[in-house]
């Protein structure tokens, strides 16, 4: 699957995460900004990478601004951003969730 354009999902509200996804060529590269990076940074990056891989994306640049989101939110926002970036919003990838 190809990223056609840069896309964004999520807000900067408490307990949300904002994911911006754009084209990459060197695996999934994540730039994470989070107040809980020390405790949950690895986990957040793992969930983003796994969600993208399951969706079929192996190369992407991600900017993630986390406001304390739980894993389910990280997953949902990542998938929404990925579908917007690949222009596939009319074919929801339910199986990834």
């Amino acid at each position, binding site marked *: 699957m190809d990223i056609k354009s840069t896309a964004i999902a999520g807000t900067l509200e408490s307990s949300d995460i904002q994911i911006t996804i754009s084209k990459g060529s060197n695996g999934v590269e994540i730039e994470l900004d989070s107040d*809980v990076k020390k405790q*949950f940074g690895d986990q957040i990056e793992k969930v983003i990478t796994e969600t993208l891989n399951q969706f079929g994306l192996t190369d992407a640049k991600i900017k993630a601004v986390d406001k*304390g989101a*739980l*894993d389910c939110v990280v997953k949902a926002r990542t998938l929404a951003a990925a579908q917007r970036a690949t222009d596939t919003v009319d074919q929801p990838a339910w199986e990834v969730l």
Partner: protein
Amino acid sequence: MKNSVNREIPDDLMKKYDYEGFKTTEIGNPEIQRVAPKVHVSTGDNKVVDSIKDVVKETVKDGMTISFHHHFRNGDFVFNEVMREVIDLGIKDLTLAPSSLTGVMNDMVIEAIKAGTITNITSSGMRGSLGDFVSHGGLKKPVIFRSHGNRARAIEHGDIKIDVAFLGVPNADKLGNANGMEGDAVFGSLGYALMDAQYADKVVLLTDNIKSYPNTPASIKQTQVDYVVKVDKVGDPDKIGSGATRFTKDPKELKIASTVNDVIVNSPYFKDGFSFQTGSGGAALAVTRYLRQAMIDNKIKASFALGGITKPTTDLLKEGLIDRIMDVQDFDKGAAESMHTNPKQQEIDASWYADPDNKGAMVDQLDVVILSALEIDTKFNVNVMSGSDGVIRGAIGGHQDAATGKLTIISAPLVRGRIATIVPDVTTVVTPGDSVDVLVTEYGIAINPKRQDLVKALSSLPGVPVYHIEDLQKMAEAKVGKPKPLEFTDRTVALIEYRDGSLIDAIREVKD
């Protein structure tokens, strides 16, 4: 060594500062010797001066201990004005011993540490940039954190020997009779500052409002004061306390508050003449509202309310639902005003409030206490000092002191964002689990197994599920996941005393 709450306390520092590890919450009946201040005799004329610099030059020497109070909170002008002069005069190696440090003081403290002006700190707490600075090893010697009651104890014992106290007041006469209730920057009770006024060798008042002599009511007395400095403004009234108290609309806080109320009302302590202390957070204020209704419905009146006072509490006094308020600190204008006008609201000093080494402190008479927590663990130990990232960002306040009440309730949400409030082990033990009785969350309550009487009294309340605290901890972890353990260096940046002066925990430098 490990102390009785299983915390590793650095042996070298225990030896260096002559500490014992925390053993028990029981104080017993020891005999202690109090200290007395040096008095520079004068008839009291010529105390008024108009230069902070001259007074600092005259009184403060290298290596001394100086103190301030924090009753102006974030509206404080006095601390920064005095410290500016102290730094600029090139004075070194001071111990800073304020009743607490507020955000508005942070930059100045950091500057003073960097300049070598301040090399030791003891405080109730610190937050923001200063907490970050200390947690990253900015101060060579460990900060010593003490509760309000413990600070009073330490001053009376001579553990804290204050050479010069700089105390801002909204009014004073030319000899130093002063109170916290009249003027532009009023804050009500002078509770914490009264210790400094009584025990410091030199007492310097700073005020923007010189009253005709003699000024009454005199909380601080002319017999205690060496200098009265006239300044332009002691503080910003708008930043001293919250203005009008707003009740929370947060459904989670309301749920916690109504459950706290259920616990109180169904405990054996809810009877005519009971006493209580609440905090100033959203949930605590809401508890006061629920409690008011329960008191009216059950025709029960309280003998006294204690601690940091807010307007909702003074409203109960006015209504006749509370007989007395014992007031060490006022959190808002309404409470401060009430202390001025209502003789049933008694100003008390920190020793009377909470000093364990006393002939009876108010906290010893307390029935019901509602306290908050950054973290609470499965042993009911509470942390109000370090954040989930290990960085200092809190204050003991009266937490350890009030927790000795007969029914100590910790009100806290199960999780805050992605951070669990209920954890297997708190980052820093401030209040030992032995003095905590009930934890109230929005999901239900947990009762300390040491209190089987409460287990019996509270186990079948409709709408109040009772859990083992381990189950609440697991519930929290299932929501947020398991955090990666924090990393610290071996270096100790702060020591936490229990209220009896023993060491309950140490905070180490964070590894970034």
